[in-house]
């Protein structure tokens, strides 16, 4: 089934798979009617999908170097788009994004713009040229373009730092979802998540990750869109929410002024005993904060996320797998198309969730109603019991005010189907979707790190004479070691001090963005310049992060550049240093310049051979 004309059969294979998944959802719905418990449905959803991914991972096993590193460079445009979308959309995108918009409104939506606009940079500045280069990993490009093991080594350091920051959060997410769905302790859930992740990637490397990511995309997008459309239709907000929620957004504005947006004092929150991580709505949903500083904060966050996107190796390496340069370009467009399906739905889900809770005229509304009555609602009780929601009657009037209802951001995605009265089968589906999103991103990240260490450090620097069998053995062993290290850190639950996912973007842009684009767009860029740029960029960015992050030194941010935006400092320093040092050193030799010329045209052979 996975042999011969497998590529030609892809639409049929994934079409059957999608049909099968829908049949499974229907079977679960019937089972629910027949009295199957919610717990069993949750377990079946997660177990069934993970088994399918593991099966695909096993079927895609390989002993070929180019299949292991770049999926044999035969992934068709649209399928690579789906795989990239799954690679890209993390557990955080799936579970936390709608919650972020729910609490942060317009200001938070800078992330939406930032996490999509970066693909314009990827397509116009990088992806087609890296594909023409024919590298296996991102440091492979840096090492060959600039020459020398030290440049390669610096790129591996940046890659590892950025990707590792990101991957612990993903394993944490798989652990949370696995523990909730399978009713096991979190620490165990993390290891169950890791085993599932490794099953997808270990035997087949990039090839296996590609075909599981396509499968995971299909699950996660179904799991995100069905609830959004269903809730909108069931509650009568319109059959196509994306085009029909304008009235609800306006209504939210009216309700905000009716209830008042009150920011609770930290002392009050503490005195009431609100569990950590829970928030109340204190920011307008669609209103734009006044002033130049607010606009700058929006723009600077979007800038960091965009430039970071174009520097993250686990995304860039997806475009090494297409059959041609032309396909790499088109594939970026498809990636963003598939990402946009989810990203444009997240604000709609946040709107639906908010209006369901806030509008006292709706049956689902809780704000402005007596607390005694609300406490009788089943979903309120169950989420309060697990400390994901909380009621604090600050003014003691027995009525729930907007600033008295606390919940965790994740609850928006996880509980809204329940609030709207959808059957439990939908909650099971959402759990499977979240698992798929977190697993696919974790797989891509772990593979990016392991490939860089096995190909760039072990094969290119330590033992260039190693045979294929030994190289793949090292690659697979590293995959396990890195996965285990990430799972160990995640299981210690110290993620709160590890910082935000946004850091990964800032680290990547500080050290890699300019060495990558100048490698293609500026022939004069030299090895010394690139090395100095990477070191100075990563160093200054990290130093600024330590200077500004509240849990480290906690100094006042300069020009509003806080710990989410430190990449602006790192990347600027990197650019300046790289240009100055390049101009001070001797211009690259003829061979290097010719290589850059070759990279710039799509036709002809790749710079690095098919097997290298």
């Amino acid at each position: 089934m996975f042999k011969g004309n497998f590529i030609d059969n892809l639409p049929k294979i994934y079409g059957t798979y999608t049909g099968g998944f829908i049949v499974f959802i229907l079977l679960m719905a019937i089972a629910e009617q027949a009295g199957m418990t919610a717990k069993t449905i949750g377990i079946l959803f997660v177990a069934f999908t993970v088994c399918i991914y593991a099966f695909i991972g096993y079927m895609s096993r390989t002993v070929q170097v180019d299949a292991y590193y770049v999926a044999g460079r035969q992934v068709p445009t649209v399928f690579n788009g789906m795989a990239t979308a799954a690679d890209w959309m993390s557990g955080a995108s799936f579970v936390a994004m709608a919650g972020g918009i729910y609490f942060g409104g317009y200001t938070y939506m800078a992330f939406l713009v930032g996490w999509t606009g970066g693909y314009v940079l990827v397509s116009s500045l990088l992806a087609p040229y890296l594909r023409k280069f024919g590298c296996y990993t991102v440091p492979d490009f840096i090492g060959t373009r600039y020459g020398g093991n030290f440049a390669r080594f610096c790129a591996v350091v940046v890659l590892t730092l950025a990707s590792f920051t990101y991957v612990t959060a993903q394993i944490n997410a798989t652990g949370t979802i696995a523990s909730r769905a399978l009713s096991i302790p979190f620490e165990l859930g993390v290891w169950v998540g890791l085993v599932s992740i490794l099953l997808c990637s270990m035997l087949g490397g990039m090839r296996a990750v590609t075909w599981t990511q396509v499968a995971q995309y299909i699950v996660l997008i179904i799991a995100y869109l069905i609830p959004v459309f269903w809730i909108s239709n069931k509650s009568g907000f319109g059959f196509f929410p994306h085009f029909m929620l304008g009235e609800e957004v306006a209504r939210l504005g009216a309700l905000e002024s009716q209830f008042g947006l009150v920011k609770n004092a930290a002392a009050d929150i503490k005195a009431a005993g609100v569990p950590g991580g829970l928030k109340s709505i204190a920011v307008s949903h669609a209103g734009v904060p006044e002033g130049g500083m607010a606009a700058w904060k929006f723009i600077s966050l979007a800038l960091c996320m965009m430039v970071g996107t174009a520097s993250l190796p686990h995304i860039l390496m997806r475009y090494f797998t297409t059959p041609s340069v032309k396909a790499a370009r088109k594939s970026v467009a498809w990636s963003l198309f598939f990402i946009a399906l989810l990203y444009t739905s997240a604000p709609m889900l946040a709107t639906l969730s908010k209006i369901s809770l806030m509008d006292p005229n709706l049956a689902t509304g809780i704000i402005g109603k007596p607390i005694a009555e609300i406490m009788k609602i089943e979903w309120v009780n169950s989420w309060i019991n697990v400390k994901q929601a909380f009621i604090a009657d600050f003014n003691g009037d027995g009525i729930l005010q907007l600033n008295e209802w606390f919940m965790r951001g994740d609850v928006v995605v996880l509980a809204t189907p329940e609030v709207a009265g959808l059957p439990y089968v939908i909650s099971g589906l959402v759990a499977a979707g979240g698992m798929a999103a977190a697993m696919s991103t974790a797989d891509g990240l772990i593979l990016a790190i392991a490939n860089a260490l096995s190909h760039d450090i072990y094969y290119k620097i330590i033992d260039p004479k190693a045979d294929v069998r030994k190289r793949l053995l090292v690659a697979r062993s590293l995959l396990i070691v890195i996965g285990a290290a990430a799972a160990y850190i995640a299981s210690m639950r110290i993620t709160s001090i590890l910082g935000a996912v946004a850091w990964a973007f800032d680290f990547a842009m500080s050290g890699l963005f300019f060495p990558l684009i100048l490698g293609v767009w500026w022939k004069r860029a030299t090895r010394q310049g690139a090395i100095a740029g990477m070191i100075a960029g990563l160093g200054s960015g990290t130093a600024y992060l330590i200077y500004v992050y509240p849990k480290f030194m906690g100094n006042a941010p300069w020009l509003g550049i806080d710990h989410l935006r430190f990449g602006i400092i790192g990347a600027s320093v990197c650019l300046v240093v790289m240009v100055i040092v390049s101009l001070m050193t001797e211009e690259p030799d003829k061979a290097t310049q010719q290589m850059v010329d070759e990279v710039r045209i799509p036709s002809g052979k790749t710079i690095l051979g098919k097997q290298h």
Partner: protein
Amino acid sequence: MSNKEKHWEKTRGLMIVTLLIWFVFGYLIFMFGSDLNTSSFMGYPLAYYMCAQGSIIAFVVLIFWFANRQEKIDEEFGFTEKEDD
């Protein structure tokens, strides 16, 4: 000027135009967020709409457009890939 140089000049021109459009939808309009929000589109306040859907759709369309334009440029100068490359 050689064929390669002309090809690269056009490629660079396309890159600049693409990034200008990117700048408008990614940054410029959000510098005037509060002004935009006074008008509305499909019932949504405009600045809210642009970051929820408008700019994202613009980026998707922009990349497809860019990919097609670049293919035309490659064709014009005879740098299209062949099957056996």
